[in-house]
């Protein structure tokens, strides 16, 4: 295990869990149902953070078995992150209001300055 500045007791872990659980509950509780699918996909993306845990485990692997399983873990985690992001972004980009509320597009996107793909 990494003994580090972030070492914590079990009780502190419970505090973190409790606060995070309330946060998740409150943040979601007033979501219109039109956003349920992108939101599920977005939270799916967020739990992809497991990839950094898998990376740390792989970095500290000492046997072939650990390396193999660690590799699989990082592969799966990376897929979770990338897939979750791309899919959510695609869906959200399609939601737009009626034309009257549409902001003037051409001014925002200058020619030759193409939007870079996010992570």
């Amino acid at each position, binding site marked *: 295990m990494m003994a580090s500045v972030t070492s914590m007791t079990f009780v502190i872990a419970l505090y973190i869990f409790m606060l995070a659980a309330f946060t998740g509950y409150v943040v979601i509780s007033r979501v219109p149902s039109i956003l349920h699918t992108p939101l599920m996909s977005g939270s799916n993306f967020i739990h992809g953070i497991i990839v950094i845990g898998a990376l740390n485990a792989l970095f500290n692997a000492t046997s072939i078995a650990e390396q193999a399983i660690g590799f699989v873990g990082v592969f799966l*985690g990376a897929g979770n992150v990338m897939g979750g992001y791309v899919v959510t972004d695609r869906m959200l980009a399609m939601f737009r209001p009626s034309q009257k509320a549409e902001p003037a597009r051409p001014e925002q996107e200058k020619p030759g300055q193409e939007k870079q793909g996010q992570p």
Partner: protein
Amino acid sequence: MFVEYCVGLSGLVASGLFIYGLKAMSSPVTAVAGIVAAGYGMLFVVAATFLNLFNITPEARPNLLVNVGLGVVALLLGSLWAGWRGRTVQMTSMPQMVAIFNGMGGGSAAALAAVELLGNHDIPLLPLSVTVIGALIGCISLSGSLIAWAKLDGRIRKPFRFSGQRAFNAALFAATVVLAVLTVMRYATPSAELPRDLFFGAALLLGVCMTLPIGGADMPVLISLYNAFTGLAVGLEGYIMNDPALMIAGMVVGSSGTLLTALMAKAMNRSLTNVLFSNFGETGGSSKGPEGEMTAADPADAATTMRYGASVIIVPGYGLAVAQAQQKLYEFVKILVAAGVDVKFAIHPVAGRMPGHMNVLLAEAGVPYDMIYDMEDINDSFATTDAALIIGANDVVNPEALTDKASPIYGMPILNAYKAHQVFVIKRGSGTGYSGVENPLFFQKNCTMVFGDAQAVLSKMVEAVKALGST
């Protein structure tokens, strides 16, 4: 010490961005900014993780280069594959794609737990138990999501059921728990291997057996549940990794996912235990069967009636998306709107194959979201509406859900399309819906069927209203 602070702070920044991102994603106006913020958080924290290379255990130092190489290759392979799949997948197939990506996350959490359990570290009882619980949840999420994917993708068509299945699953669960306890007790002893390997096998099998009997209609709730499971597993593994970022992100998803699951289950009027342990559609063999006859009409006649009506509510269902007719539908709607008809879309919470899925499909066709109404907001309007146009939807407008206690879908809230003065239904044939239940609405006097492929029918409707001119 410096490295640890940097890595720790990167996790803090990422957790903050995740929570901000989720919050922003709960309104259509700020949603895109939300996912982008969360994306930057993820990029940042993954990059910072490489700083941990300065901080690895002495035993792992000889493997440093190999491990880093493996890590980079796995990152690239995973993100390239998923990025390619995510970019190319059809919007109609989105639910199964989300299921796969979710399963991958669960698998990653399980793999992380497996690496920890493989080693011979000095882990106290409590963190060890947390790791094993996380592994159990992660495994269920992995194999369960894969089965859910296969079902949604049409690779497994029928729920797989046998007598005594519930008892079998209960026994399997008990066995998995026993193996989990053995895994904890035998950890770092010479006899650790057997129970540990059996435990992982049993946990994966449990996910498969839990999911197999569940019917296709309940799949969205299940995916949402597995999404929450993965979050929980990630949070628990975060504890063993001593990483608050994992704990926070995992637990936020765990709780929000649970809430989302409850909301969806409520929308379908099914409790979670109902979804998991009762077999949908089994209560069937329902009642008498509807009376009367279906009336069929020509697309042009139906279109003309709507064109000269004052108000039309459209109820789109999955059949619309299967026929790829959203674009055509919106073309038709634009003509009606230009002719002064008040057109609204009514979306049932479980329209499509996932809550909100239909909104995504309509958005893809360019329908602005302020034309789209939720069930609670529009249900009272049907009674004062001239025409309801139902396309490829069936169970969500079945009035039997309100009246017939013997019906398997009894109690599910429906769109009150049957109250409209005139109801038009575009449908391929006279068959039943996803749940296999007959719909008495189609036999009502004010209901007219327009049989045919949605794409073809809507094309004819567009032609018909165009021919009428715009006044």
